[in-house]
C-alpha cells in the first residue's frame, strides 16, 4: 500500500491577481518522503507551484484558486501561513534576501519567535538547527561576513529550527559556488534520507544526481512528465578544443598589479593580457578575487601597484545582477541607451533577434519573465561594439534557453574581435567557450593548462 503523500494537489488551478490565464493547472500532484525535483524553463511555473505548499499562494500573493492542495493535513487555502510555517520550511533563491537579523544565532531564532515558542525552548532548537546545517562554529558571527554557501545554510537552519515535515527550496544552488552547492546538497541528502519531504526547483542538476527520487517537469504552469531533459543537453553542448580561434592584438594588459576593494590587496603581482577575438574564463571559489580582477580590468578599481593598459574603445561590464540595471521603458530603449553615440542599430536588432527578444523589443523589461529579463539585460549591456566585454557570473539563475542565448552572444562578440573575460562557476560554459582559463585564488591569478581545465 502506498504511503499517504505529505503533499497532495487535486484539480488545482491558480490565477495571479489581474491575470488573464491560469498560472497553474495541476490535475494531480503528490510528494512524500525523499527528494522531488521540479524542473522547467524560467516562467514555467516552478516558483508558483512551490509557493502553494507553504501558503504564500494565496495568502501573500493573492489571486484566484480552484481545486485543493493539502500539505501535512492542512488545506493551504484555509490555513494561515503562520500555521503552515510550522510544517513547511521554505528556502529562497537569493541567500542575501532571507536573513532578518544581522547575527547568525539571532536570525535562526526568528521563526521560533513568530510561532510563539517559549523562550526557554528556543536555545535548544537553535543549537540543533546549527548542528544539522554544520554552521555551529558560526553561531556568534555577523551574517554579512558569511559566504554565499554559509548564508544559504543559515537560511536552512532558520527553517529547520521549526522542525518542518516538508522542506521546499526554490533554486537554492543558483548563486552558490561549487563548494557552497555541495554543502547544501549534503544537508538535503541527509534530510531526504531521514524521511523529510524535500521538494527542490533547480536548474543546476549536476549536484543533485542520484539524490532525486522523482522528477517533475513543468511548462506553462502544467506538469509535462518526469524526465530530465537537461542531462541530454549537457552532453550535446559542444566543447571547443583549446586554441581553435585565431586571436588578434592585445586589448588590455596588466603588469605586476596589486588590487583589492579595500586598503589591503587581495590579488598581488598579477600579470595578464587579453587579446581581441579571445575568451578568457576566470575560475575560483567565491571570495577569491574574480570580481575584483574584472573590476580592475574595467577601470572601476585602481591598482594599488603595477600598471594596466587598455586599448581605446568601449568596455562592457555585465554585473552579477544585470537585471538591476533595467530602467528604460522598453527593451529596445535599454539597448539604444547603451549604444547612444555609437554607429547604429543594426547590431542591436541582430542582438535582440539572437537572444530571442525581437518580439519583445517594445515591452517594458520589468514586465518580462525572469529568463527574458536576463536576456534583455545581456542585450542592454553587450550591445554595440565593445572592445572589451567583462561578464561576472553571467549564468547565475539562468535556464537553458538563456544560457544558450548568452553563449551565442559571446561567440558573436568573439568573432567580432571583442576581448571577452568571464568570471564563472559554470563548467559547461567554460568548456564550451574558453580559449584560456585563469585560476584566481590565494592572492594570485595563474593560467591553467588546457588539460587542467578538462
Amino acid at each position, binding site marked *: 500500500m502506498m504511503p499517504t503523500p505529505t503533499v497532495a494537489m487535486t484539480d488545482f488551478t491558480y490565477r495571479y491577481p489581474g491575470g488573464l490565464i491560469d498560472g497553474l493547472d495541476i490535475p494531480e500532484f503528490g510528494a512524500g518522503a525523499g527528494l522531488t525535483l521540479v524542473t522547467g524553463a524560467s516562467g514555467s511555473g516552478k516558483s508558483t507551484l512551490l509557493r502553494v505548499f*507553504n501558503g*504564500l499562494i494565496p*495568502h*501573500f500573493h493573492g489571486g484566484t484558486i480552484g481545486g485543493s492542495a493539502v500539505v501535512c493535513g492542512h488545506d493551504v487555502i484555509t490555513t*494561515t*501561513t*503562520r500555521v503552515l*510555517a510550522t510544517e513547511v520550511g*521554505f528556502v*529562497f533563491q*537569493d541567500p542575501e*534576501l*532571507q*536573513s*532578518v*537579523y*544581522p*547575527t547568525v*544565532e*539571532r536570525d535562526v*531564532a*526568528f*521563526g*521560533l*519567535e*513568530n*510561532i*510563539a*515558542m*517559549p*523562550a526557554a525552548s*528556543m*536555545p535548544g532548537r*537553535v543549537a540543533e538547527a546549527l548542528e544539522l546545517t554544520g554552521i555551529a562554529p558560526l553561531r556568534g558571527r555577523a*551574517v*554579512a561576513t558569511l559566504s554565499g554557501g554559509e548564508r544559504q545554510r543559515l537560511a536552512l537552519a532558520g*527553517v529547520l529550527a*521549526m522542525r518542518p515535515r516538508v522542506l521546499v527550496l526554490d533554486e537554492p544552488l543558483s548563486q552558490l559556488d561549487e563548494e557552497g552547492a555541495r554543502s547544501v546538497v549534503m544537508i538535503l541528502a541527509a534530510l531526504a534520507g531521514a524521511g523529510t519531504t524535500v521538494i527542490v526547483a533547480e536548474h543546476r542538476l549536476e549536484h543533485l544526481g542520484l539524490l532525486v527520487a522523482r522528477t517533475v517537469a513543468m511548462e506553462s504552469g502544467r506538469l509535462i512528465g518526469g524526465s530530465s531533459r537537461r542531462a541530454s543537453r549537457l552532453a550535446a553542448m559542444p566543447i571547443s578544443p583549446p586554441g581553435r580561434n585565431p586571436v588578434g592584438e592585445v586589448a588590455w594588459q596588466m603588469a605586476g598589479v596589486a588590487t583589492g576593494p579595500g586598503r589591503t590587496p587581495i590579488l598581488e603581482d598579477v600579470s595578464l593580457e587579453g587579446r581581441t577575438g579571445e575568451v578568457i574564463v576566470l575560475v575560483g571559489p567565491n571570495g577569491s578575487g574574480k570580481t575584483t580582477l574584472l*573590476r580592475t580590468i*574595467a577601470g*572601476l578599481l585602481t591598482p594599488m601597484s603595477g600598471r594596466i593598459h587598455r586599448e581605446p574603445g*568601449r*568596455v*562592457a*561590464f*555585465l*554585473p*552579477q545582477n*544585470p537585471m*538591476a*540595471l*533595467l*530602467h528604460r521603458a522598453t527593451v529596445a530603449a535599454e539597448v539604444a*541607451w*547603451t549604444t*547612444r*553615440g555609437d554607429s547604429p542599430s543594426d547590431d542591436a536588432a541582430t542582438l535582440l533577434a539572437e537572444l530571442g527578444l525581437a518580439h519583445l523589443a517594445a515591452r517594458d523589461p*520589468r514586465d518580462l519573465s525572469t529568463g527574458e529579463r536576463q536576456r534583455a539585460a545581456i542585450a*542592454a*549591456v553587450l550591445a554595440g561594439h565593445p572592445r572589451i566585454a567583462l561578464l561576472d557570473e553571467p549564468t547565475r539563475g539562468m535556464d537553458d534557453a538563456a544560457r544558450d542565448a548568452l553563449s551565442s552572444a559571446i561567440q558573436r562578440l568573439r568573432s567580432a574581435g571583442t576581448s571577452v573575460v568571464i568570471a564563472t562557476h559554470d563548467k559547461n560554459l567554460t568548456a564550451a567557450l574558453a580559449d584560456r582559463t585563469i585560476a584566481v585564488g590565494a592572492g594570485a591569478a595563474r593560467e591553467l593548462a588546457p588539460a587542467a581545465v578538462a
Partner: protein
Amino acid sequence: MNPRALAAWSVSAITIALASGNPVYRVLVLLCAINVLVALRRPDVSLRGLTIALVVAGLIATTVTTLASHTGHHAFLVLPAGIPVLGGPLTIEAAFFGVSTGLGIAAAVLAAAPLSLVLMPNSLVDALPSALARTGAAIGTALNLIPGIARSAGEIRDAQRMRGWRPRRIREWPDLAVPVVLTALEGSITLAEAMEARGYGSGTRTHYSDMVWRRADVAVCVVAPAAALAFVLLRVTGAIVDWYPFPDVSVPPISALGATCCLALAIPALVWRR
C-alpha cells in the same frame, strides 16, 4: 554586556553632559566616554571617522559662536560693523563659550556612540520591551536591508558608468535612482515574503533573549543613573554652580561631588570586558 544597561549608561552620560555648561565636567564625561569606546568597541569598528567628525563639529561650534556672539569685555579682533552678522568685536569670552559648546556636543555624541559601536547592530532593538517586540523586529529588518541597498547602489552605479552614464544634469540622475529604487523595492518584497514564510505576521510572538543580567550589568545600571540623578540634584540645589563666561571669562568652578559624578561614568570600562 546587557544592552539595556549600556543604554542606561548612555542616557546618564548625556544628561550630565548637557545639565551643565561647565567645560570641566564636559571634559570629564568626554574622557569617560572615550575610555568606554576604546575598551569595549567591536573589533570591526574604526573610530577614525567619528574622531574626524567630532573635531570638525567642535571647530565649527567654536568658530560660529565666536563670529556671531560679539558679547564679552575682551575683544581680540574687531570686524567692520557693516558686515552682516559677523560685524563687531570678536571676544575671548565668546570663543571660550564656543569651546564649551563644542565639548558638550562631543561629549553627548560620544556618550551615545557605544550604542552603535559597542553593541551588535540589533542588540538595542532586541532590548525593547515585549510590547514593542514586533515593531523592533520590523525596525531591525529594515536596518539589515540598508547595507545591501548601499552595496547594490554602488554596483548599479559602476555598471551604468560602464554603459556610458555621466550625469551632467539633474535629469540624468534617474538613470541611477530608478534602478536602485526598483531593486530595493524588489528586495524588500522578497524579504517580506521570506519573513511570512517563517511565520511572521499577526498573532502572539515571543522573544529569543540571549540577554542576561550579570552583576557587572546591574552595577552599570545602578551607578550611572545614580550619578546622573545626583548631578542634576546638585545643579538644582546650587551645590554645583554653573559656568558662564560673560561678560568676563573666569576659571570654571569645580565641585568634588560634581567631578565624582562625572568620573563614576567610567564604570563600564572597569566592570565589562570584550
